[in-house]
């Protein structure tokens, strides 16, 4: 009796490609297919222009739109007048951007970590008010911040002129909020358990801070360093409003003035250099993040996802 019930293995006849494609499209679970399409179209269309711009930085001719052959490093170092290597204005912009980003990272990250810790654990009305204050720069239009900072430096803090100093101060002001949100997200996911365990085992408050909390926060501190770098490199409005002239121009300011005139692929080269930099930074930060959170990943979990939810964790 039981043998009759045993199902014989059924060989499914192989279907042709066309048949399989039709089945795939005609899938009764319609929604995911549409979503897949939208997602991939979006992803490709958002990255393709950048790749094409990088491609044109290798253009043999002066055009940014008509491909004239592969020119190698012409706009990077080859052209004796206009290439990034030979044009002092472009180089200066590159160094200024990196300088601002570096200073921003150095100042905003510690300040932001302290602020995050303070705001997360402080109670009371003052704490709520400070929390509100911290969130404001995230949603203020940049022109409002640019205008207000330049007026403040003109009328209130008159000892600071438009200069690199002013630009750094402006950058740190809007970077703070990002650091706070990222670090706070990490704090919530850690919880108090480790600190309490350390206290139970006899650690002093300072030791707990130094040996337990700080190492646990390292991934978030690292992500915020990278985020601050990215938004500082990217910043245009604040840098322009607080600029002292050609000496304080950053890469976005150069791209802006070039794009409004008749730019050469050298600008593509300059912008591409920034892309290489940030790609390198992401790569490093990804590897470091994986290293740092080795012990925390759930089985089958993904470091990318963790990192992204850290970066995206600045919202409700």
């Amino acid at each position, binding site marked *: 009796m039981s043998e009759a019930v045993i199902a014989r293995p059924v060989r499914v006849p192989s279907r042709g490609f066309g048949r399989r494609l039709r089945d795939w499209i005609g899938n009764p679970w319609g929604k995911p297919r549409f979503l897949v399409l939208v997602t991939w179209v979006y992803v490709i269309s958002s990255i393709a222009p950048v790749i094409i711009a990088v491609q044109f930085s290798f253009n043999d001719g*002066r055009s940014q739109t008509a491909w004239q052959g592969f020119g190698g490093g012409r706009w990077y170092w080859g052209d004796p007048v206009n290439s990034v290597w030979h044009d002092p204005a472009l180089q200066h912009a590159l160094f200024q951007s990196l300088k601002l980003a570096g200073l921003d990272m150095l100042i905003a990250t510690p300040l932001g970590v302290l602020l995050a810790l303070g705001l997360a654990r402080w109670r009371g009305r003052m704490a709520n008010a400070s929390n509100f204050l911290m969130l404001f720069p995230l949603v203020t239009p940049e022109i409002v911040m640019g205008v207000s900072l330049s007026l403040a430096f*003109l009328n209130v803090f*008159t000892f600071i*002129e*438009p200069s690199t100093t002013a630009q750094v101060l402006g950058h740190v002001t809007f970077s703070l909020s990002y650091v706070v949100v990222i670090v706070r997200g990490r704090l919530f996911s850690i919880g108090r358990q480790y600190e309490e365990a350390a206290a139970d085992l006899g650690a002093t408050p300072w030791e707990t801070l130094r040996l337990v909390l700080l190492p646990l926060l390292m991934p978030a501190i690292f992500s915020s360093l990278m985020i601050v770098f990215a938004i500082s490199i990217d910043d245009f409005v604040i840098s322009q409003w607080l600029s*002292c*002239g*050609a*000496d304080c121009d950053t890469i976005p300011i150069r791209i802006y003035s070039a794009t*409004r*005139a*008749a730019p050469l692929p050298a600008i593509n080269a300059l912008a591409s250099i920034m892309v290489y930099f940030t790609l390198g930074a992401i790569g490093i930060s990804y590897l470091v993040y994986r290293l740092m959170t080795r012990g925390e990943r759930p089985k089958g979990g993904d470091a990318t996802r963790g990192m992204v939810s850290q970066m995206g964790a600045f919202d409700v």
Partner: protein
Amino acid sequence: MQNHDAGVSGILEALRTGRISRRQAFKALAAVGFGGALAPALSRLAAAEDALMGPGGIPLARPDKPVTLPLWEDPIKSGMEPETDGTFTVFNYADYIDKALVDEFGKQHKVKTQITTFDSMDQCITRLATHAVRADVTNITPDRLAQAVAGKLIKPVNPDYVPNLKKNVWPSLHSPFYDQESRYTVPYTVYTTGIGWRNDKVKEDIPNLSNPWSIFWNSQAYKGYVGVLDDSREALVLAMLYRGNYDINTEDPAAIDKALEDLKALIPICNPKVNITEYQTLPEGTSWLHQCWSGDLLGGVFSYMPEDTDPSVLSYWSAPIGKGPIQNDCWAISATTKKPVLAHMWLNYIVDNTVATDNFLNFNGYQPPMNSITPEQLVAQGRIPANLKTAVMTAADFGPGALQEMTLTPKGQALWQSAYAKFVSGA
């Protein structure tokens, strides 16, 4: 008695700052009973011949109403040795003076040099006024001289140190209307505002039109390739000249509004771009018809022509004297300089024939008002194509009959700025 004084000085102050006219001042003073006694004071002001008053009581200069700027301190004595060591700071627009020439000056006088830049005249004045920048010499335009002298931003010049001015520069600029006796300035570049176009794309014979400015209002065929200068004065002046209104320093709201309406009418006709990058876009061909500065066109020819484009495709037209704006800018000595003698040497250096010509031909394309530079000579040397002789000026283009956009009272400036803002808002 005190009240009376306060009333009188208030009236005089109002007259000086242009809030009331002379007639109103007389009436007000008569009402206070002081008309007769103050006649001398008033006639001193009247000597400015109805000229509008600028900041600090300095009259606003016009080509037909020359002004002698007051000396707020004495110029330095003659015959002193130039200072050495330290850094000599040159303050001007970006890419406006050849760094090689600045470095050469530094080498000659054994100082380090640096160029500090500003993006606009407003920034220049603000930075000097707030001491954000401590410069030795600064580029300045004539319409800012009243501000600069009233605010003591620039020092008077001792002409004994600047012999090149009388030797090399056009006679019409030895004692210009905005700075009689050249007490504070030395001219740097001269330029007209006219029409620049690509003659391979625009088929009209613009110079021979009855009203060349009207090409903009008939440029439907070139929609999207037309441009107007991004400058509140220049754009509105274009519309004024189109209508034959040559009072380009007017403060009459009706005239300004009419210019605004005409300018707004351009938008549906040719959707003009509003920028100052015609020195690149005309050579590159992304703009075909643009309100243009002569120096930009020449600079474009010298530096921005693509490899496969011949400079003769560019054309320029500017109106004859009195019918189109001709401007110049200058160098002045900053009041905060610690090297006044060296600053004077700089003024002399910048109007040296070789230096000025090098700067023009090898760097910025803006013509210095030197006797040694003539359109024919430039064509003969092959520096410019023959059809661009129109972009080079001669001494005869300057004079009391010329049009020059000059300082307005704050009220006038506000009118022009608001009108321009309305144009730019695309309303």
